[in-house]
């Protein structure tokens, strides 16, 4: 076989496979029964009850700045902190929920993406998304510790226990990991249960989205009866003046949507939310990956290229030889 013919055949075959399979994978759709949480930044008073109960339920130690300090003061998510309340402040920081000269609180915990990057990049299905609840869980028994999930998450959520000898990946699993299973037992997440203002609200994603949209439509200044606990069966309510919400529900569409959604009166880029488009990174990456690997296309192209290099470099031997 002539070198020319071989290359022609290889390239032709590759092109054919690429043409037939290069169809973009769309974003995953939220599961119809997916559960989630709604964090309303304007309701949060910064009591950190959610941080406290999270540590208790997940049996995690307080994170302190020094040995003298006995209270938890985690600065960000880590292998020992799955949920943290952070503050945005500007100027004199006197007015709550004001973008200029104001402050507001923002919760950092797993967003439980509808199309999770961490699940997509995990090479050994240690990161899984539950088909019914949509909860993203981590299974340490199969994890190889590659930490791809940490890079694959736009929210910096999966964290590695760097301080442990046999460290593992840690992330919020919506209190539904093996051994706790609060959601399976019909309970709500710990943070939603203890939140005194209903700033963290648990419930079906659909109902939460509806609630968030309803709040966007309320007039600032009118009194609204805010639910606490589970949006579908709140254990109590409290009345409060409606703040001037931004007309933006973070997690409705961002990167394919999230099950944990945020609303606020301060723009989300000020609250440290990453600039992700509507398309999930997982869908883009999987489109590329699955296309170039379909029918072994990438290995075939690579083999062709290598063959070409080798043949070119050894061309003199074979020229006119008995091939």
């Amino acid at each position: 076989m002539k070198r020319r013919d071989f290359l022609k055949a290889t390239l032709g075959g590759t092109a054919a496979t690429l043409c037939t399979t290069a169809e973009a994978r769309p974003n995953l759709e939220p599961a119809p029964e997916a559960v989630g949480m709604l964090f309303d930044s304007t309701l949060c008073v910064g009591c950190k009850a959610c941080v406290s109960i999270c540590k208790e339920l997940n049996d995690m130690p307080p994170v302190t700045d020094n040995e003298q300090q006995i209270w938890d003061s985690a600065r960000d998510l880590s292998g020992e902190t799955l949920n943290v309340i952070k503050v945005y402040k500007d100027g004199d920081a006197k007015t709550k929920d004001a973008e200029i000269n104001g402050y507001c609180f923002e919760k950092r915990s797993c967003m439980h993406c509808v199309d999770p990057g961490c699940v997509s990049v995990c090479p050994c299905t240690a990161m899984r998304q539950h088909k019914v609840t949509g909860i993203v869980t981590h299974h340490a028994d199969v994890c190889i510790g590659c930490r791809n999930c940490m890079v694959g998450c736009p929210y910096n959520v999966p964290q590695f226990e760097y301080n442990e000898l046999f460290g593992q990946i840690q992330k919020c699993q919506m209190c539904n990991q093996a051994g706790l299973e609060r959601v399976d037992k019909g309970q709500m997440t710990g943070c939603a249960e203890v939140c005194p203002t209903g700033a963290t609200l648990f419930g079906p994603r659909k109902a939460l989205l509806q609630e968030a949209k309803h709040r966007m439509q309320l007039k600032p200044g009118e009194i609204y009866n805010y639910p606490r606990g589970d949006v579908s069966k709140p254990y109590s309510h409290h009345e409060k003046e409606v703040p001037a919400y931004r007309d933006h529900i973070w997690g409705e569409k961002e990167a394919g949507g999230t099950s944990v959604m945020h609303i606020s009166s301060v723009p989300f880029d000020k609250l440290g939310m990453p600039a992700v488009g509507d398309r999930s990174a997982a869908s883009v990456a999987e489109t590329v990956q699955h296309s170039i690997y379909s029918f072994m296309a990438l290995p075939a192209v690579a083999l062709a290229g290598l063959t070409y290099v080798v043949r070119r470099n050894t061309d003199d031997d074979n020229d006119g030889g008995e091939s």
Partner: protein
Amino acid sequence: MVGIEIDYSEVEKRLGVSRRTFLKFCTGVAASLGLSTHAAVAMANAVADPKRRPPVIWLHGQECTGPTEALLRSEQPSMEHLILDLISLDYHQTLDAGAGHQVEDIKKKSMLENKGKYLLVIEGAIPIKDNGIYCKIAGETMLDLTHEAAANAAAIVAYGSCASWGGVQSASPNPTGATGAPQVLKDKTVVTIPGCPPNPANFIGTVLYFVTYGKLPPIDDKGRPKWAYGRLIHENCYRRPHFDAGRFANEFGDEGHQKGYCLYKLGCKGPETYNNCPSLEYNNVGGGVWPVGVGHPCFGCSEGGVGFEKPMFSLADVKTHTPPNMFPAIETREASGTMTAGAAALAGVAVGAAIGATAMGAKKLDEKEGKQE
């Protein structure tokens, strides 16, 4: 107090208390003001000297006499006895033995004789609507009486929430235009002792400070003495650890309520009310006698715009957590999990080196074969 010799026999006779009880009282007041024992001695001296007793004109406006009633029931050793002798109470509508023209004449006489030296205490709100006709004493409006008495006062104290910011009658729709003394006497410094009723300790402490040092204690922008109203109730509340740990009473009588959990969810206004109730409790009765102590959320009685204004069980705006107060900023990261620019560059170098090595390897393959030829 060793080495200080003051003749207290006069005081003992005049006040009807023992020297020991008297000094204990002065030390207690000095301590609650955050002052030293030296200040307690100074106070004892001031009280022991009858010439320094300032005359007091005490006005009542729209109110329930709660502040005076609270003062009369103080549990300090014969406090009402002491306070009535400590100051020369020349005019007080509730406590005066006389009545009618007699007391009004005494008041006018005292104000004239002690021009610029008397202490004016205002109790109750001052209605200003329709020229103040909604509250009249001896044929004159409270508004006129206040201005008249304030003109030559050495110091003015607004005692109680009504006098401090209007109180219950100033709540919407406020038909009489009830107003606090600081708003009526805009050009004067008015010390306010808000509360409904106010803690007599806050009043006595402030008056004793005035008697001792001849000036008023440091006050905040609302005229409140900082020693008493410098902190939120929430800051010193003994239920605060429950708040921080997320343990709340959800309804009256539930498990959390029985266990003494935080009352924030029941509408406690402690997080937006400045007062010293958690440290002093009420009227020295002890045993947790103040609303939060007995299991009821703080009502915000001493805070204008909160007490009588906000619904009793609506959630308070938590003021403690105004940043910076132990919160990480949005951009703060724990020192792990993110790839730094340096690490990314190193990784790039590694990838580049691998590609280069492969290319060189292929080249060498060529050279080797060439040599073999």
